[in-house]
């Protein structure tokens, strides 16, 4: 940006690329989890009746349980994806 000495600039440039890479993985994963969890909260807030529908007709387990469990499992899966990608890179 400025005319500072070339040394930091180089290192900054190299690391910035790596940094952008890490953001590239972390950011979409964050957004994905936000959308899925946000969906859970929004459904619960504005359409709780949809979540009250049983998963199997006649059963008692509702979609609220299924969706909630899905959010929990997704959290683990996405963390796994992140660690795999990040550790392969370094």
């Amino acid at each position: 940006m400025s005319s500072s000495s070339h040394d930091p600039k180089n290192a900054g440039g190299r690391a910035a690329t790596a940094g952008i890479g890490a953001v590239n993985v972390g950011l979409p994963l964050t957004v994905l989890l936000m959308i899925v969890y946000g969906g859970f909260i929004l459904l619960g807030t504005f359409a709780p009746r949809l979540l009250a529908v049983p998963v199997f007709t006649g059963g008692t387990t509702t979609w609220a349980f299924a969706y909630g469990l899905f959010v929990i499992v997704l959290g683990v899966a996405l963390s796994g994806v992140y660690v795999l990608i990040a550790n392969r890179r370094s």
Partner: protein
Amino acid sequence: MINTTAIILFIAFVIVTLGITYWASKRTKSTSDFYAAGGTITGFQNGLAISGDFISAGAFLGLAGLVYANGFDGLVFAVGYTTGLPIVVFLLAERLRNLGRFTFTDVLCYRLSETPIRIFSACASLVVVAFYLIAQMVGAGQLIKLLFGLDYIYAEIIVGVLMICYVMFGGMVATTWVQIVKAVLFLAGGSMIAFLVMKQFNFDFGALLSKAVSVHPKGDAILTPQFLARDPLSALSLGLALMFGTAGLPHILMRFFTVPDAKAARVSVFWATVWMNYFFALVFIIGFGALALLAKDPTYLDAKGALIGGGNMAAIHLANAVGGSAMLGFISAVAFSTILAVVAGLTLAGASAVSHDLYASVFRKGAADDRKEVQVSKIATMCLGVVAVLLGIAFQTQNVAYMVSLAFAVACSSTFPLLLLSIYWRGLTTRGAVIGGSVCLASALLLTILGPPVWVKVLGNATPIFPIDPPTIVTMPLAFFACWLVSVMDRSKQAASDRNGYDMQTARATGGAVPAE
């Protein structure tokens, strides 16, 4: 209800954990050992310790109690808690490890001016830690009261004294090892209870739910979230707080400095996520199991039909109902040690804000010797212990999971925005961080006090002055906006140096070569 088997098991367990503390204290030699276990904890061990921090009173006792009272509403909290750690993995964990030494403040100070930042973040840490402490103290006090038939106030004092012992003698090495041991035991105990509950219903979750519906006055309304729709703004606010609050909790962030490198930091959060999310999934069974098995059983109810010992004790009664005295003693002991260890970790985070951030770096300008610094942190521990006991008494009737969500709300409107901006936005300046952060810490605190949590539930007023509970949906955007606005308008010399430091910080944070300074 005095139960000898339970009490013997309980005392044995507490002695064993104190033994661990003693053993660890022999290994605590430097400041680095005291705060960060000398960076010697492996990723897998640290993962267990982090999940240990989470699987606390807030999780086990509070959530089971919430489900017992309100059905699925309690699980909304459980699901929310599980989204927190993945966010820490994606955005913060490895950068924190690369930039910091002992506390997350070290990270903020990498390119921002040290003194004002340390003063601010020490205050923010202390506020967050205080809210979190309340939850743990209430849970522990009620547990001791129930198990030993002691007065609540004495129960609180015992918890306070034990907690101070843990921290004073062991430091981070001890709290980490205690967390690891009990995380394993707690996971095992929780799994066992869930298994025994399911066994009673022939492993048919639907049958368990039918039973729960049949005994709850609200009927099948408990199978879906109820409270969210009543107040949409508060619902969204809670969602935000649960998702991003974790990333601002000082005692969780502190754990990333106990591992040797960024790779270990990543591995540790992954394991933490696995264990924690597994545990919160168990709450589905444990919570509804408590409802199905206890709600009509006079053994566990008082004359008015409420749970003996209060709603927070649902999981403890459930352990007795499915596994008898041995299970009761085991779970009480593990739950108690959990709380103690979490409280110790929290206190350590609070104490290090005082000793490392305020004393060593601000008052002594980094020239304090290690021994003196550890001494200050021990004094701070004592003070925090006393404060914790007093707060625990003031909030004694609150649900613990709910109190935890308040700590999250404050964390994600103060520490989290600053960390995120300082790591990802070149433009953040010292002035922006301090003014923006202070405005939001103050507003989060003020709105919590004027809102339902304190104004209505503690002070006993009829209607809150500020209706949204928690206030996150106002304070978190405000935090980002205030930091942005003040930073952009900042034309000072310090601001230029703050912005110039960004490249070097990014290089360091991402593990690239660090240019000579």
